[in-house]
């Protein structure tokens, strides 16, 4: 206890010292702002920029948001312009969401180092990875001008995370060691700007939750605009005053928390209309717009400036047109209504768009890569079928499947040859060896059609059930079926709707499928590879087993239990340390030995539409990372 006290005292001392020096160095500087905001200041509708920025703004310069390797010619930009995207969902455009996301901590372009404060001015992790001390930027303000203080943190913790109505189950991300059965975190408010989170067990991976290496962590769970949300919370506002809102949504008095959850717009809801008026910390805020547009306008209180003191973002607006039908996408793009978009450019349309760049008024960028292996083939090792289990849990079978995939051809057909092999998975193509392994397993007998016979004396079937989430998925499965059939395994394919897919997964009826795979670009995060964590593989019963500490569900086979164990150990350590690299090696070994899944390729080019005069645009690296740093982009 004493030790803790000393540590915290030293911390406070360090904080206050740095704070003093920073505020001195910036107080002489004059900040500049966008013309549209200067106009509002002149009209008296906004305070001057010096009062809107925190005492120590986040300074964006070369290599800060994107690595110098990927963006060697960072320059100071100019104000103005509108980014326009297009999307198919009426309520979410990933492009916009990624552009307005902010985390407590950050690293350049999703790398692991150097880890720095983002919304937080500073942070400190105790040596045992149990205590996280975070200091917010003094003078930081919500997008409506109200100061951000630790009271917002207290509110988020006490009144939301600990409120049984709003949060019936305390999220595992905020429990000791990130374990679903672990003890919930403890929060201590040190002063107006400093707070401390304590776990009972080492939890270095908590840095990932705070923002490192993960775009989607965001600040929302720990930092909420309490002044805005209190008006929907029964602890602060009487139910009589909340009732009119409840009526509008058709909720009863007891359901006030449903209204609260709608008003507390969290990360994936950020594009919805309920986001209008909710204070945020992002570079652009959701504004009112016609039904077929989602529009964001610059946040006058955004806390980042460039090296010359210009408040970011440079671009005034970011909007997205909603189209109902994928067939409308080419028309929307060709008519010049889109100038910044990732994800909506199908590979088979790239040449069409390239030819029409003049008409589109933007260019097709083919320099940046996807941040993950686009898709992978997954096997459910826990399907109730005993024969299936016996066969697929034999590592020779998995090796054979992996060797039957012709990745060079896959890349040529699906990604115009831009695919790179995975760093983690063996990807040699060897049909002969695949056949030998299968023979060795005792599956050498064939049926009348030439397909291999399983241990039960019947033809062994390998059914790939999938739903289409990307333009080329069907094609990919066709190729996979063709490859696997070459080994004599009777592979089949069946397309289902997203709904049915989810249902079948819950009922443990899937045997094999294809799904997105977040490749090992953040290698210490084995979590993503755990069955059903982010990728669609494994039995739901294992998850239950894991979540209930072995009381319910079903124990996974030994080799998968190893992964759970590895993941649990890795969660304890700080991902930006040497020890993490050790775990990375262990994980790589586990992957090589077991081949649990089959990525089609490692990475591919991520085709994007970008304005032809876009400044500060990366020339290499991840497409999503370049876009995540949208606040530094500008029109030349």
């Amino acid at each position, binding site marked *: 206890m004493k030790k803790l006290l000393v540590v915290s005292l030293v911390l406070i001392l360090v904080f206050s010292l740095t704070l003093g020096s920073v505020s001195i160095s910036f107080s002489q500087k004059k900040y500049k702002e966008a013309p549209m905001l200067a106009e509002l200041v002149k009209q008296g509708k906004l305070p001057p920029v010096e009062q809107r920025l925190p005492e120590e703004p986040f300074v964006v310069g070369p290599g800060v948001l994107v690595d110098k390797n990927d963006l060697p010619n960072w320059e100071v930009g100019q104000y103005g312009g509108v980014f*326009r995207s297009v999307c198919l*969902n*009426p*309520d*979410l455009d*990933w492009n916009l*969401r990624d552009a307005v996301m902010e985390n407590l901590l950050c690293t350049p372009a999703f790398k692991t180092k150097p880890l720095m404060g983002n919304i937080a001015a500073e942070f400190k992790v105790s040596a045992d990875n149990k205590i996280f001390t975070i200091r917010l930027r003094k003078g930081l303000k919500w997008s409506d001008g109200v100061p951000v203080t630790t009271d917002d943190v207290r509110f988020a913790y006490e009144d939301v995370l600990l409120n049984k109505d709003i*949060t*019936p*189950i305390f*999220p*595992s*991300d905020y429990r000791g060691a990130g374990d*679903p059965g672990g003890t919930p975190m403890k929060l201590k408010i040190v002063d107006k700007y400093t707070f401390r989170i304590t776990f009972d067990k080492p939890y270095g991976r908590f840095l990932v939750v705070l923002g490192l290496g993960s775009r*989607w962590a965001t600040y929302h769970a720990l930092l909420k605009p309490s002044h805005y949300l209190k008006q929907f919370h029964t602890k602060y506002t009487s139910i009589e005053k909340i009732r009119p809102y409840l*009526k*509008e*949504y*058709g909720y009863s008095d007891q*359901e006030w928390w449903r209204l609260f959850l*709608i008003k507390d717009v969290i990360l*994936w809801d950020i594009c*919805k*209309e*309920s986001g209008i008026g909710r204070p945020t910390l992002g570079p652009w805020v959701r504004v009112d*717009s*016609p*039904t*077929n*547009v989602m*529009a964001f306008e610059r946040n006058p209180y955004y806390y980042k400036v460039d090296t010359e003191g210009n408040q970011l973002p440079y671009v005034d607006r970011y909007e997205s047109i*909603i*189209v*109902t*039908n994928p*067939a*409308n996408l080419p*028309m*929307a793009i*060709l*008519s*010049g*209504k889109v100038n910044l978009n990732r994800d909506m450019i199908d590979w088979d349309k790239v040449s069409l768009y390239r030819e029409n760049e003049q*008409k589109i008024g933007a260019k097709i960028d083919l320099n940046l890569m996807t941040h993950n292996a686009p898709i992978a083939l997954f096997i459910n090792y826990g399907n109730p079928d005993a024969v299936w289990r016996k066969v697929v849990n034999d590592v020779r079978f998995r090796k054979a499947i992996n060797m039957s995939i012709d990745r060079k051809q896959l890349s040529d057909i699906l990604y115009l040859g831009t695919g790179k092999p995975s760093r983690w998975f063996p990807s040699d193509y060897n049909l002969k060896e695949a056949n030998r392994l299968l023979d060795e397993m005792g599956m050498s007998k064939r049926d009348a059609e030439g397909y291999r016979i399983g241990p039960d004396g019947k033809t062994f079937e390998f059914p790939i059930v999938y*739903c289409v*989430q990307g333009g080329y998925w069907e094609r990919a499965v066709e190729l996979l079926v063709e490859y696997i059939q070459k080994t004599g395994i009777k592979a089949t394919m069946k397309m289902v*709707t*997203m*709904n*049915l*897919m*989810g*249902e079948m997964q*819950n009922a443990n009826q899937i045997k094999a499928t294809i799904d*997105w795979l977040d490749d090992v670009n953040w290698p210490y995060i084995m*979590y993503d590879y755990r069955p059903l*964590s*982010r990728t669609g593989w494994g039995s739901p019963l294992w*998850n239950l087993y894991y*979540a209930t500490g072995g009381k319910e569900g079903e124990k996974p086979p030994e080799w998968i239990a190893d992964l759970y164990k590895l993941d649990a150990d890795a969660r304890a350590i700080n991902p930006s340390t040497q020890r993490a690299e050790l775990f990375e090696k262990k994980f790589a070994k586990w992957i090589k030995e077991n081949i649990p899944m089959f990525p089609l390729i490692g990475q591919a080019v991520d085709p994007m539409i970008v304005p032809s005069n876009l400044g500060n645009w990366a020339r290499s690296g991840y497409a999503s990372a370049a876009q995540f740093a949208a606040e530094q982009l500008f029109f030349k």
Partner: protein
Amino acid sequence: MLNYIIRRLSIMIPEIFLISIIAFIVIQLPPGDFLTTYIMRLQASGVAINQTIIDTLTRQYGLDRPIYVQYFMWMKNIILYGNFGTSFTWNMPVTEIIKERLPMTLIISIASLIFTWMVAFPIGIYSATHQYSPFDHFFTLLSFIGVSMPGFLLALVAIWFLYKYTGYAIIGLFSLEFLNQPWSFAKLADMLKNVWLPIIVIGIAGIAGLVRVIRAMMLDEIKKQYVTTARAKGLPEYKILFKYPLRVAVNPIISTIGWLLPSLVSGESIVAIVINLQTIGPALLTASLAQDMYLAGSIVFILGTLTVIGMFISDLLLAWLDPRIRYGDRQERGS
């Protein structure tokens, strides 16, 4: 007549009640629910989903309650407060979503309806009075093409032609620069630049069918003896046509008013989807795909109710317009 109206009205209440149940059940028929799609979509966009998030969402959307409870809550709010619930996808009250889309929907539907009638009536009458003339053959051919060609195909082809030869791309009702502007003359002019295509495309299918109906009905009528008598009496030709046979010829059109009302609200959804109009049809489609049950259920329910009301109106109109129609009194039914 009053008796008849009361009787018709009293049948409508159980009808509407049944429609509400069916609407709610139909939306839930496909496997899974809103969350299964929603969670897969979130996962696809990179969000790590764990059981905590799934449980919280299930509770937030009220999907943990049994279906009959969900239905009764929905009905209670509609009857007591006129509140159709909250759309899962939009996080907005359903009434607001419909309200936002209704004006544009009505403008397009009514305009295409007027367009249909303005074109179909003259052609139908002309074809009937000049049977087997070259123009009649020409219009017959055209209308057969119109009947057999799906509207969405026509829309796609029209969009492509327009883009290919003028470089003008129709995508939605407004150009980019007007999307965020308040209403003005310039915006109206901009809308007129785009709105004619959906009106014509939606109209054409209707025109073709209507021309055939009017032509057939008129042909039936003008061969009747009262027309010959009128002509013998020396009545002017226009009076002969418009006073008597035409009135009979509109009967089949009046009797389909029941379908007209719902089609005003969600007419030609497929065309609207192809041209990317923000009308109610596409909203229904998106909501059904996402199993956004309050939005989809409410639209289906409203459309069903409108059909019932439309049928009621068309029955009344027919009874008033055509004295030959009886009210189906008891003695007759007894026999």
